[in-house]
C-alpha cells in the first residue's frame, strides 16, 4: 500500500501536481489528463489475480509499484534497513503492446533506493522512459529494473512463485547493496482478496505482498562492505485513482513479529480529522485476517524535527481484539527521503505486548 507517495512524486516530477495552475493553460494535453484518466481501467472488487502475469506491469492502470523493504543485521550485530522501489506511471492508458513500442511508450518509471543504520541514512533516485529497455518489468524470468538497479528472479523456482527467489541491487552516491531474498510461502493478498480500500468512497487499489522473505547479502557503505542477514517484505500495488481530494498523507507500518506473524497497518489522514484505517493480520502460515477500520488504534507519541518538519517518529499501535499493544522506535529518526516529494521511510523496532522489527512510511508532513 505504501505509496500513494509515488503518485505524488511522479505528478510533481511531471509538473502535474497542480501547484502551478498557470501552466495548465499552456495546452490541452495537460488539461486533458483528467479526460485520459477516463481511459484507464478502474479498480473493482471482483478481479481474480493470475500469477506470474500479475507480477508484471499493468499499463492500462495509471500507477503501479514494486516495493521492497528489508530489516537486516550485520556480522557485528549492527542493525540496517534497505529500501528498493520501482514506480510506474502511465501518462496515458496503453495496452501492454503499446507500452513496449519504443519511444511511443507513455510509461514513465521512477526508482527510489535507500540504506539506513542508526548513524546514517542515504538515498538515491532514478527516472526513465519506458519502451526502449532503460526501465521496465519482465514477467518471465521476472525482472523489474531501472538503469543498473534491478529486482530479479535469482534462479528457476521450479513451480514455486517466481517472486520466491529474488536478487535485488541498487547503488547511489557512497552506498550500494546486493541482497538475495528467498520465501517459502506464497504471496499474501491484502484487503478483500487483494482489493484494498483507501477511503469510504471509491478510492482503492490492487494490493498483494510477500512478507516472508529471509535475506542474505551485502551492503557497501562509504567504501566499507558489510555482510547482512534478516527479513524483507515486498509489496505490489496498482491503481488508477489518486487519493480522495481531502486526504493529505498517511502513516504505514509493515511489522515482522518475533512470533512469526506479520502485520500491515495504515491510516490515511483527512484534513477534516476523519482518518481512514486499514490493516491485515498475517499468521505465520500465511493465513490472512483483514482488520476492520474500527479495530485499529494508531497514536503518535513523539515528534522529531526532520528536514525542518515535525514528524511523529514514535508510535503506540493497538489492536484491542488481538491484545496487541506496542510502542515503536525508529532505528534512525532522520530517515528522510529528500526526493522531489519528500517523505519519511525507515526501519523501526517495537516492544510491548509483542516485539519485532519493521518499516514505517509517513507522508504529507
Amino acid at each position, binding site marked *: 500500500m505504501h505509496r500513494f507517495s509515488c503518485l505524488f512524486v511522479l505528478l510533481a516530477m511531471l*509538473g502535474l501536481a497542480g501547484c502551478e495552475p498557470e501552466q495548465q493553460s499552456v495546452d490541452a494535453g*495537460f488539461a486533458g*489528463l483528467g479526460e485520459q484518466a477516463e481511459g484507464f481501467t478502474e479498480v473493482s472488487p471482483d478481479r481474480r489475480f493470475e500469477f506470474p502475469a500479475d507480477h508484471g506491469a499493468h499499463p492500462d492502470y495509471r500507477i503501479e509499484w514494486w516495493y521492497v523493504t528489508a530489516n537486516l543485521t550485520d556480522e557485528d550485530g549492527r542493525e540496517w534497513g534497505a529500501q528498493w522501489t520501482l514506480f510506474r506511471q502511465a501518462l496515458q492508458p496503453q495496452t501492454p503492446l503499446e507500452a513496449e513500442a*519504443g519511444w511511443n511508450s*507513455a510509461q514513465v518509471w521512477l526508482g527510489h533506493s535507500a540504506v539506513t543504520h542508526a548513524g546514517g541514512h542515504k538515498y538515491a533516485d532514478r*527516472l526513465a522512459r519506458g519502451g526502449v*529497455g532503460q526501465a521496465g518489468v519482465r514477467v518471465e524470468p521476472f525482472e523489474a529494473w531501472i538503469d543498473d538497479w534491478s529486482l530479479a528472479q535469482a534462479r528457476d523456482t521450479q513451480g514455486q512463485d517466481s517472486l520466491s527467489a529474488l536478487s535485488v541491487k541498487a*547503488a547511489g552516491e557512497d552506498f550500494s547493496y546486493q541482497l538475495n531474498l528467498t520465501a517459502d510461502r506464497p504471496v499474501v493478498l491484502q484487503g478483500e482478496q487483494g482489493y484494498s480500500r483507501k477511503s469510504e468512497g471509491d478510492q482503492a487499489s490492487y494490493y498483494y505482498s510477500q512478507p516472508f522473505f529471509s535475506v542474505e547479502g551485502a551492503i557497501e557503505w562509504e567504501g566499507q562492505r558489510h555482510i547482512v542477514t534478516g527479513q524483507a517484505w515486498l509489496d505490489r500495488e496498482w491503481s488508477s485513482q489518486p487519493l480522495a481530494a481531502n486526504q493529505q498523507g498517511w502513516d504505514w507500518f509493515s511489522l515482522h513479529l518475533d512470533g512469526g506473524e506479520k502485520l500491515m497497518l495504515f491510516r490515511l489522514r483527512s484534513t477534516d480529522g476523519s482518518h481512514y484505517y486499514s490493516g491485515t493480520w498475517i499468521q505465520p502460515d500465511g493465513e490472512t485476517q483483514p482488520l476492520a477500520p474500527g479495530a485499529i488504534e494508531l497514536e503518535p507519541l513523539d515528534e522529531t524535527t526532520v528536514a525542518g518538519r515535525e514528524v511523529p517518529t514514535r508510535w503506540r499501535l493497538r489492536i484491542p481484539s488481538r491484545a496487541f499493544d506496542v510502542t515503536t522506535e525508529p532505528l534512525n529518526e532522520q530517515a528522510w527521503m529528500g526526493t522531489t516529494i519528500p517523505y519519511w521511510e525507515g526501519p523501526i523496532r517495537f516492544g510491548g505486548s509483542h516485539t519485532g522489527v519493521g518499516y514505517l512510511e509517513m507522508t504529507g508532513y
Partner: protein
Amino acid sequence: MIERLGWVLRTLLSHWRRHPLQGVCLLVGLWLATGLWTGVQALNEQARDSYDRAAGLFGEDNQSVLVSPGNQPFDQEYFVTLRRAGWPVSPVLQGSVTLNGPDGAATRLRLTGIEPLSVPEQGSVVGTIQQVDLVGFLVPPGRTWIAPDTLAELGLSSGDTAQLANGHALPPLQSLAAVPPGMLLVDIGVAQRMLDQSGRLSQLLVEGAFAANQPPLPEQVALRWDVRDEGDLQRLTDSFHMNLTALGLLAFIVGLFIVHAAAGLAMEQRRGLLQTLRACGTSLRLVVCALLLELLVLALVGGSLGVLSGFALASLLVGDLAASLRGLYGAQVAGQLVLDSQWWLTGLAMSLAGTLLAGGSSVLKAMRMPVLAWARPQAWRDAQARSIRRLAIMGVLLLLVAGILIYVGESLLTGFMLLGCLLLGAAWLLPLVLSLLLRGGRKLARSPLGHWFWADSQQQLSGLSLALMALLLALAANIGVGSMTEGFRLTFTSWLDQRLAADLYLRPESQAQADSIEQWLSRQPSVQAQLPSWQVQSRVRDWPTEVSGVIDHPLYARRWPLIEAVPGAWDQLAQGRGAVISEQLAYRLDIELGDAIELETPDGIWTLPVLGRYADYGNPKGQLLVSAEQLNQRWPGLEVSSIGLLVDEAAISDLVAGLQDNFELGGFSLIDQAALKRYSQQVFEQTFSATAALNTLTLGVAAVALFTSLLSLADARLSQLAPLWAMGLRPSRLAWLSLAQMLMLATLTCVLAIPVGLALAWCLVEVVNVQAFGWRLPWHWFPFQWLTLAGFALLAVLLASISPVWRIVRVGPTQLLRQFAHNA
C-alpha cells in the same frame, strides 16, 4: 537653489536657441557615435545570444558526448546498454529537415530530438522544458519547441502545425525563448520518425561530472568520446566579432571628435556668458553643475536617438550578418533582432561616457576660468601650438609602440592594439606634419596674398586639426579595409577557380544511394572521372578538424593548389604516407612541413607526416587530406560524403537532369561548379557588406566633423578676413581663397592618409588576418581605389565647406565693419 539652477540652466541653454546649428552638430556627433557603436554591439549581442542558446541547449559549454566513430547514426541499443551499466547518458538524434512555410518558401532547419527525462538538466533549455510542459512534450501528438524569432521568420505562430518536405507532419509548434535559432526541438521518438531513422541515435550526452575523466567504454559499445561542437561557435567566430567591434569603436571615436569640436566651440562662445553669470553671483559649483546637467541632457537626447538608430542599423544588417555567419561557420543566428533592456541602457551609458569624455574638457576649462576674465587670444594660440607639439610626441610614441607590437604581438588582441596605435599615432602626428608642410609652402610663396594664404592656413590648422584627424582616420580605415577586402576578393576568386576543379558535386544521402549512383555514373559515357571522398569530424590537439579521404587521381596534383609541399606530395599521400593540411590548421598548431600530426582513430593513434599546406579560405575549421584507402581502414563503415565529377561540358545539364530523375537529389545534394562558386562568392559578399556599410558611414561622420569645425571657425573667420576686405579684396575672392584653403588642407590629409591606409592594410593582412583566420593573403595594390576614396573625401569636404564659404560671399559691409567695432 533648485530655482537658481533652473535659471542658470535656462541661460546656458538659451545659447543653443541662438546657435541651433551648433547644437545640431553636437547632437549629430553623439547620435552617429552612439548609433554606430550600439548598432555593432546589437549585432554582436544578437550573435552571442544565438551561440549561447546553441551552446546552452544541454546546459554545459563543452558537453561531452559519445558518437559513432564515423559520426554516423548508431543503434539506440548502445544507449540502453550504457544506462544498464549505470552510465548517465541521454540519447540525441539530430538532422536537417526542410520545412515548407505558409508562403511556400522552403527553409532548412536543424531538427534535434531529445529525451527529456534522462538529459543532463542543469541550466539547460531542456531543464526549462521540463518546467514548462513536459507531459505535452512526451505524450502524442507531442510538441515542436522553436525559438520565437525563428517562428516569426517562418511566418508561423504557436499552435500551428507544419509539414516537412519529406511528407512528415511536425507536432504542433510552441515557441520557447531558450531554443537556439533555426532549430526544431522534439522528443527523440518524434525525431526518429521525422528523420526516418527509427531506432537510431546520432549522439549520447554524458553528464558532466561523470564524463570529466572520460572512463573507458564497455567493450560491446562501439562509440567514441567527443565534445559537442556548438560550444566551438564562440571560439570560431570570435575574430569575426572582434573585427566588427573594432569598426564600431572606430566610428564611435570619430563621432566623439565631432562632439568634442562642437562642445569646445560652444564653451569658447560662452566664455563671456559664464563670466557674467559668475559676476552676478552664481557660484562656481552651480555653474559646473549646470554645465554637467546640460551635457547630461545632450547625452540623453543624442544617446537615445543613437540607440534607436543603432537598433535600426542593426535590423538592416542583421540579415546579412546571419547569412554570412551561417555561410562561414554554419552558425545559426536569429534574423530577428531581439534586445533586452540592458542593451539599451549600455548604449545610453556609452553615450553618456562619450559625452563626458568629449565635452568634459570644456567643463574643466570653465572650472579653471577666473571670474575676472582677461581674454588673451595669444595665450590660447600658444597653448594650441604647444598642444600640437605634445600631440605629435605622443603620436610618435604610439607609432613606436605599434612597431614593437609587430614584433612581440602574438594574439588577435595585440593585433587590434597594433591597429589602434597605428591609427591614433598617425592621427596625432597629422597637425604637426601639416603645419610643417604649410610652413614650407609659405617659404615658396612669392606674392603677399600667397604669403597670407599659407600663414592663414597655418593659423586655421589649430581649429581644424581635430576634424582633419577624423578625416585621416576615416580615410585610412577605408583604404586599409578596402585594400584587404579587395585583395581577399581577388585571391578568393582565383583560388575558387582553381580549387573547384570538378564540374559537379553531389552528396549522397546514404551509402546505398552512393553505391547505386556510382554504378549509374559508370554507365554514363559523358562522365570522365568520379572523385568520391569520405569525411570524419575530428580534433587535432583540440582544434575542430575535418579529416577528408581522397582517392588517388592525377587531378589533385594538377588542380589542387599547394602553398608549399615536399616533392611528390600527392604520390606520397596516395600511398598513405602522410597528409596535406590547411593553412589555418598549420598556423593554429604551428606545424611545419615534415612535422607529424597525431590523429585519434577507433583503433589507436595515427601518425601522419605533413606533406604540404594549402589555402582553405573561409573555413574556420582545420582540414586534413589523407588517402581514402587508409581512412576507410582506420574508420571502418564510413559512408561516402561527397562525389566530385569530371564531365564533358556539353553534357552537364543532361547529367544533372538524369541524376535528379533517378535519385531525387535536390538542393545542396547536387550542385554544379558555377552555382557553388556563386554561393561562395555570395557568402563572401555578405561577410563584407556590413564592413563596407560601416566604413562608408565612418567617412560620412568625418565629413560631418569637418563641417562642424568649419562652422565653428566661421565667426572667427570673418574677423580674420575683414582686414583683407578693407584692403580691397572682394568677398567672393575671399570665399574662393577660403575654399582653396580648405581643399588644400583636405588634399594634404588625403595624400597623407594613403600611406597610413596602406600600413593599416598591411597590418590587417599580415597580422590581424593571420591571427584571426589563420591565412595570409598575397599583397595587392589598388591605386584606383585610393583615388576614388580621396575623390569622395574631397567631395565631402567640398560639401562641408559650401555653407561656411557661402556665408563669406553673402556677408555685407556692415557685418564686416562690425568686426572692427567689436575688436576696438
